[in-house]
């Protein structure tokens, strides 16, 4: 009996050192000060992320809470991200929320052990943090596919996306599956951009010759198309059939042909003699 107590006393300082976390509540600058010494790389990664650049929008406390206790569990769960991102852009959260990944997580998350690191085999499906802060990578920018609505996807961006996805998705899925799904998704985004470029070509050709009211009509349709284009990207990234399709590609088709309709309506009205002036056809 006494031996056991002695043993415990011998190891007590070691236990304390391992589990010792400063108690109390902290502000963001205090976290950054201390953690820059302990894990400079992590802090640098956060500084490079969209959370800190161009302005500090989400600091340590935003996701981890002000206390050390439970801070990892809190930050790993979807709710840490959803609170802000739902308000910022519902398409971002909704495209994920209807995916199989999110559905399974939602049904099961309360029974999962969130104290485990965001790594292979620890979670049945990925939440926001599993992919975007994988293995503690605090530069969330690295896992967000670049998106220029008009630029065709160049080979280096394609390789970078595959290179980023393969190790993360590959923790659950087969390498060929990840490659095929990613390639298909990237091509899907390329097709969305073709539609946007086709529209831009028409806008460039016609917009400046038009009265303000008709310019506004074209701008609204073109703005809509850019939203649909972003939806395709979100659908690809978050594996949402609806964002890829109904809120993406066919929506792009619809507004592209409405732009053509507006342009042809203008041409038709111009071709008529003045005395046959027509009421405006709705776009």
């Amino acid at each position, binding site marked *: 009996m006494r031996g056991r107590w002695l043993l415990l006393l011998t190891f007590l300082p070691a236990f304390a050192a391992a589990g010792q976390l400063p108690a109390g509540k902290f502000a963001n600058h205090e976290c950054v000060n201390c953690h820059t010494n302990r894990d400079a790389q992590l802090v640098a990664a956060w500084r490079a992320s969209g959370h800190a650049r161009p302005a500090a929008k989400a600091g340590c406390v935003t996701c981890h809470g002000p206390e050390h206790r439970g801070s990892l569990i809190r930050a790993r769960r979807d709710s840490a991200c959803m609170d802000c991102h739902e308000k910022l852009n519902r398409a971002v959260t909704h495209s994920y929320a*209807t*995916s*199989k990944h999110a*559905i*399974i997580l*939602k*049904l099961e998350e309360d029974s999962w052990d969130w104290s485990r690191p965001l790594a*292979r*085999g620890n979670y*049945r499906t990925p939440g926001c943090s599993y992919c975007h802060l994988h293995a503690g990578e605090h530069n969330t920018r690295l896992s967000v596919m670049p998106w220029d609505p008009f630029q065709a996807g160049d080979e280096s961006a394609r390789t970078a996306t595959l290179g980023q996805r393969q190790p993360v998705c590959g*923790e*659950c899925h*087969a390498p*060929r*599956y990840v490659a*095929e*799904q990613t390639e*298909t998704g990237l*091509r*899907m985004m*390329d*097709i969305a951009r*073709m*539609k946007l*470029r*086709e529209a831009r*070509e*028409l806008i460039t050709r016609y917009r400046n010759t038009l009265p303000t009211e008709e310019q506004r009509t074209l701008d609204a349709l073109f703005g809509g198309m850019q939203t649909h284009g972003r939806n395709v990207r979100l*659908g690809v990234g978050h*594996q*949402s*059939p*609806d964002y*890829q*399709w*109904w*809120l*993406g*590609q*066919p929506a792009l*088709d*619809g507004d*592209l*042909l*409405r732009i*053509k*309709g507006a*342009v*042809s309506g203008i041409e*038709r*009205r111009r*071709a*008529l*003699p003045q005395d*046959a002036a*027509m*009421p405006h*056809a*709705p*776009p």
Partner: protein
Amino acid sequence: MHRHYIWATLIIALLTIPVGYAYVYWNKSGSGAGLYSREWQPDPVQAYWDPDHFYKPVQTVQGVFKGEECVACHTAITPGIVNDWRASRHAKPDNGKAPVFCLACHGSNHQALHMPTPKVCAQCHENRVAQFMDEKRYGFPSHALAMDRAVDAKHFADKPKAEVASCLQCHSVATKCDSCHTRHRFSAAEARRPEACVTCHSGPPHPDDDTYFASAHGKKYLAEGAKQDWSKPLTKGNYTTPTCAYCHMSGGLHQVADKTIWKFGLLEVNPNISSNEVRRAAWVKVCSDCHDAAWSETKLKELDHERRQAWAKLYKAENALKDLRSKNLLFPGATERPPYPMDAIENLFPHARIGYYDGQASAFYNVSVIERDYFETWYFVNLGAYKAAAHGDSAGVGSWHKALDHALTGIDTQAAALSAQGEAEKKAHGRRADPGRLWLEGEYTDYNREHN
């Protein structure tokens, strides 16, 4: 003399029907998929959505393995799916049965592995798969026919493959059981919950999620769902509120089509023909698990009423469009827009597709603005109203019908403007305006024509 006509008609019919069947069979028997299988080959990614037809195993690992060997190796490589399997009934069956290892579904030769499809699941789950396949006899809409629905669609074959790859995630419900029972746990409890359906049953044409969650049933589910015991079968007394599966797959019957009266809201039906009376009785039986039968019948009648109202509105718009078509006032006209490249008949006889039976479901991208607006009214607004009415979201019925009225006013105004414009052009120039190449060219339009 009259007798000759009868005989001639009969002989022509007897010849035409088998020739028609043979033609469809011939078209479907190519190496691609669906009605265009002789002209259209899928991208490699389709292998994962329709493994029976297109999956080819990887050749990376050699050897024939036993169940424990698969598990031992994959615990290191893909521990997630092994964890899933360990938590499943496959790993721990009831009644002391032997575990169902990886090879039961994937095969044991690593260079000849296959993806499990309903055929594979039927080795054990024979009844469930038989129920699922039996659904085909009810026609569309259907889970079991969903892949046919995709690959036979004109727009599927005609649009770039990477674009329509998005369709396969949902339409593969016909070709894989894990759309609802996700791998590798294949949980019945998961599939019983409404969330299991919403990855596909959400969004503009089928807001099943929004309308259900807004209904009294759905609100109760949101409040109490997490506390329910989902391991219980979908039968009377086991649940405090019905879910998608409770009503549409009552008793766990693995098909969703036997009670379909209004066919997804896509077309007008007579809800009181004898086959629909059978379906009505089946609905009343399900509702009667909790509600009074007379009350349930009233609810069905309310749905009929909503549908009749919606269809009266839709037909008005449809007729306005058909009128424009007959007067050659659609702009661009059928010959001035990009054709469906693979449709030989369409190329011979260009024709604007208006109405369900005319193939309107594919007419949403290479059409004129008013046709597109009608497509959206029919496919998004009308279906929103239908889903709201069918799921008991009464506020939704009101707002969707308001949206329907608004959309139809827009179509009316547009139709009037198109008519006036056409008349004025005829008067001024003596002919219809020429849209030139506007609708036939452009970066995507060109790419779409050349890549399918």
